[in-house]
């Protein structure tokens, strides 16, 4: 199923770039929140690299998706965990790929159900454009232009290494 129409960047290199872009803005009031599943891998690595004091948050946006009426509930929904006080916090939301912007819309909605943050910024490994909502990332590993029939996917190997691959639309979530 895996095809290679174009050269994809090295995910680990993009991650290093992302770390150096976020680092200047880190202080003890900043909290990271990863969006399941790829965003959580990134957020865990970022949390470690940037030595953050506030604990890592995890969001599963399944309950906030806008396509529930069409595709139903995601069968593998997992709990969200926000182990810090959201109200008045400065949050960096982390996801692997920014595409339509619908996932980020859902994530922001969910965060507001925990409280009123002072600010939310967005960190993304790959921005592939084609937004359907007015959402922009403040920290971006790379911008890529991809054929619209293709889905970009981030994987984590057994050794923890990140890699990108391209699929035909339909797979995977």
């Amino acid at each position: 199923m895996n095809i290679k129409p174009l050269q994809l960047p090295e995910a680990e290199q993009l991650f290093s770039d992302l770390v150096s872009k976020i680092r200047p803005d880190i202080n003890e009031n900043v909290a990271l929140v990863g969006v399941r599943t790829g965003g959580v891998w990134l957020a865990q690595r970022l949390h470690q690299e940037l030595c953050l004091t506030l604990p890592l948050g995890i969001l599963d946006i399944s309950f906030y998706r806008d396509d529930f009426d069409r595709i139903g509930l995601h069968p593998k929904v997992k709990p969200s965990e926000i182990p810090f006080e959201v109200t008045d916090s400065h949050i960096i939301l982390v996801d692997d790929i920014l595409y339509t912007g619908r996932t980020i819309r859902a994530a922001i909605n969910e965060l507001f159900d925990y409280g009123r943050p002072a600010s939310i910024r967005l960190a993304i490994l790959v921005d592939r454009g084609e937004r359907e909502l007015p959402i922009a990332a403040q920290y971006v590993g790379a911008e890529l232009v991809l054929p619209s029939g293709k889905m970009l996917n981030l994987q984590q190997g057994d050794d923890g290494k990140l890699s990108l691959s391209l699929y035909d639309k339909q797979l995977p979530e």
Partner: protein
Amino acid sequence: MISTNPQLNRSGELQHLLTTEGLPATILLEILDTAESFVGVTERDVKKIPLLRGKSVFNLFFEPSTRTRTTFEIAAKRLSADVHNLNIAASSQIKGETLLDTVNNLSAMYADMFVVRHLQSGAAHLIASHVQPDIHVINAGDGSHAHPTQALLDMFTIRRYKQDFQNLRVAIIGDILHSRVARSEIHALTTLGVPEVRVIAPKTLLPAKVERLGVHVYHDMAKGLKDVDVLMMLRLQNERMQSANLPSSEEYFKYYGLTQEKLSLAQHDAIVMHPGPLNRGVEIDSAVADGKQSVILPQVTFGIAVRMAVMSILAGN
């Protein structure tokens, strides 16, 4: 996959929840796993998620209930649905309207889901077989037949305290004969792979040939409770007391009421469950009901998460 189970749609997904009987373990586990994600919702600032926004849930209770109706109502509201509670005793039923006419009228008001409790076995099933394909029905207890969400919240509670089902001895104690809860529990426990399910009751409170459900039968608490990990108590319904089934509640308590002394025959870390409402001093002693092995109140709390899971899975299928 073409299914003959009226609860499943053509793709084998849950369309209605009528009974735990015949449901595959994958669906039971999907409900329990989904419920895990809903437990945390109650700890947030906003105890609500937008999943069923704009949907109408009708609670049709033809038989009195406090906690089941309330927890269904809370569950639906936490999912942002609009909830309509129908006080059936004061409605058209006593004017002679049939059950299906009532349901047809409510469907014409754009209902998306019916939660049904009825004193007759099969009522929810009847409604499910007559509604439009986009309407979902949840059985909240029908006669002495089934009470699937109670059984599921009990399974959720067991898994929370005992981690898995594969190494457990579970005893269901009390009025098995009239209990829809017991039937639904037995089906769920055996489907989820509990190796030993026991029922403990006097002969007058056991259905004929209950062994066929895959349970071991005991009439003596001392034998039946030995090495048990989970005790599922049942309510002794007062109305049964008046029939010839039992001599007196005092005598029942003496032989089958759960006291600390009888509980000590089970595993030292056994949990005690009860679907409520409690008859203290009849089927359970207050010291046990309020004791440290009791998980009766957590059951109620988990009931909300489990009902949220059932509603959201149904609404999405």
